[in-house]
């Protein structure tokens, strides 16, 4: 919910990446940015867990087992069982899927729309820019959680609608940042050259402008994923996210988890750690990526 703040920094234009040796680049990145590298590792592990959930999870994440309710962590259920007797570890493993799906889908879609709007706004300038800016202002002034609430109230709950609800507030935030980068590019001579050559607007935007704002765009995406996972958890806590019995981290923290927080703390602790770790990873990585692209913040 602190998106506005996180993204408030102006993202500077990055050099065109020279991909001579990716591996050594990763190595250098890790040395310069050990925190970012740690974040990257968290993300990779999370993606692997999500992809390989079917092989990792020992139990069916939605099957009730009322003879094994509230089992503490042990050999049979590594992280214990919840109030329906479902295996917490299996639910966390499958929950990674939901988290990544919501996180990536909403940040990609949100950022993509933001990208197009931001670049178009900067490219055309003038009245169009002014109107776009006012529309973005409106969305920025609108309380984010209320926007999400209203979207859920209109479309109902469920994974796709949660994604929509989280995506919409991202669009103006991304458009803002992209626009300010694109404004700088618009002034560059080669865009003038392209225009003089009589290329179509679409072509100039797609071929010349967009590739040059990829840096802030990628930064936005990494920053959004963590935020989206958190927002999804908040919506679930309010009962407006994905619904039972779908395994999802935020959902696992709601309802039973609070009720049983004392006598069966594992129900609430482990999904909470999963969320924190994931958001932590994405934030560290996002910060590192920003530092990387922003030469002013580089130490040497």
């Amino acid at each position: 919910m602190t998106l506005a703040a996180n993204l408030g920094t102006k993202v500077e234009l990055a050099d065109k990446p020279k991909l001579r040796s990716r591996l050594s680049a990763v190595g250098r990145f890790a040395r310069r940015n050990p925190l970012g590298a740690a974040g990257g590792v968290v993300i990779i592990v999370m993606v692997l867990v999500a992809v390989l959930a079917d092989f990792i999870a020992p139990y069916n994440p939605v099957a009730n087992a009322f003879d094994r309710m509230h089992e503490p962590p042990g050999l049979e259920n590594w992280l214990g069982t919840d109030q329906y007797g479902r295996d917490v570890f299996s639910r966390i493993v499958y929950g990674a899927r939901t988290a990544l799906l919501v996180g990536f889908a909403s940040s990609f879609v949100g950022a993509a729309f933001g990208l197009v709007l931001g670049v178009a706004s900067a490219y055309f300038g003038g009245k169009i820019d002014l109107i776009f800016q006012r529309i973005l202002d409106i969305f920025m002034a609108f309380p984010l959680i209320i926007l999400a609430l209203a979207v859920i109230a209109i479309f109902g709950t469920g994974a796709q609608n949660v994604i929509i609800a989280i995506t919409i507030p991202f669009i103006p935030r991304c458009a803002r940042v992209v626009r300010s980068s694109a404004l700088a590019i618009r002034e560059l001579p080669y865009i003038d050259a392209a225009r003089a050559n009589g290329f179509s607007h679409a072509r100039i935007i797609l071929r010349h402008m967009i590739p040059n704002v990829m840096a802030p765009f990628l930064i936005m995406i990494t920053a959004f994923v963590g935020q989206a996972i958190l927002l999804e958890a908040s919506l679930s806590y309010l009962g407006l996210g994905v619904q039972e019995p779908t395994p999802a981290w935020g959902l696992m923290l709601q309802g039973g988890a609070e009720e049983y927080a004392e006598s069966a703390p594992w129900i609430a602790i482990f999904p909470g750690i999963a969320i924190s770790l994931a958001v932590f990873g994405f934030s560290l990585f996002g910060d590192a990526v920003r530092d990387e692209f922003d030469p002013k913040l580089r130490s040497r």
Partner: protein
Amino acid sequence: MYQYILKRLLLMVPTLLGAALLVFLLLRLVPGDVCVLRMTGGAGYVDPKAITLCRAELGLDRSYAVQFLTFIWDFVRFDFGKSMWTGRPILEEVGLRFELSLQIAIMATLTAIILAIPLGTISAVKQNTWIDYVVRGFSIAGIAMPSFWLGVLIILGLLITSKALFGSPWMPPIKYVPIWVDPLYNLSMTIFPALATGYRYSAVATRMTRSALLEVLREDYVRTARAKGLVQKLIIRRHALGNALLPVVTIIGIEFAFLMGGLVVTEQVFNLNGLGRLFVASVTNHDYTMTQALVMLVATIFVVTNFVVDIIYAWLDPRIRYK
């Protein structure tokens, strides 16, 4: 400068108007309405005529255009009308909650500033040392932890430790009393959510302080100061921090605007009767007038904060004015 201020003021109008239109349309897109909800919240037979009557009373049977124009006209005259859900004046319903939200917002902001400025400074000065990593890790953890989870842990921790220490479980009060009526009681309720929120919010401000300071530290005048042989501490205090603070203040301003009405989840956990909870309740109750008033309130706070920030910037940096 006057011209700039005037221009900025005029730009607020379309934003507010747009927010009004947006909330108006969003609310009407939600299926169901306040009358159906109010009469079928429990079980029992409901006369369809009663629902029609209720709609007529609340003016929901008028065309959207008429409803919208009435809403705008009333807003312009600062006449917020009555809540559709409770039938009471909105000002009365909002007043107390506003007070509570404002108090939490101020306390959380103070917590954030107290944490963020020293931490951010240390982190920037000791960039890329283990101190920097620890500080950044600590502050990012503040964003990463779901606030409701933190809240639940805090309350549970209080209940358990107080039982262990004093024999009977203690939890923060669940009923708000204004600070001037009973400061101790008030603080024992508000301090925990303020700390939880402030920590989270300090994470953002710490990062901002760090990067703003890093940027300033590379400016020529700081290098000159260093070349002159000034002590690092003095440079930071006298030259760098002051200049780096501007973006930090901006962030704090924007976050403050967000805190008013954005603490939906924290308010649930600590049973705070604030604007965030009222927001959720009024959206789920289809209380059009109340939601509209709240959105306009928060949007106005946001727009005014931005306006003030812009004016301060323009005042400090004349280039902006003539752009």
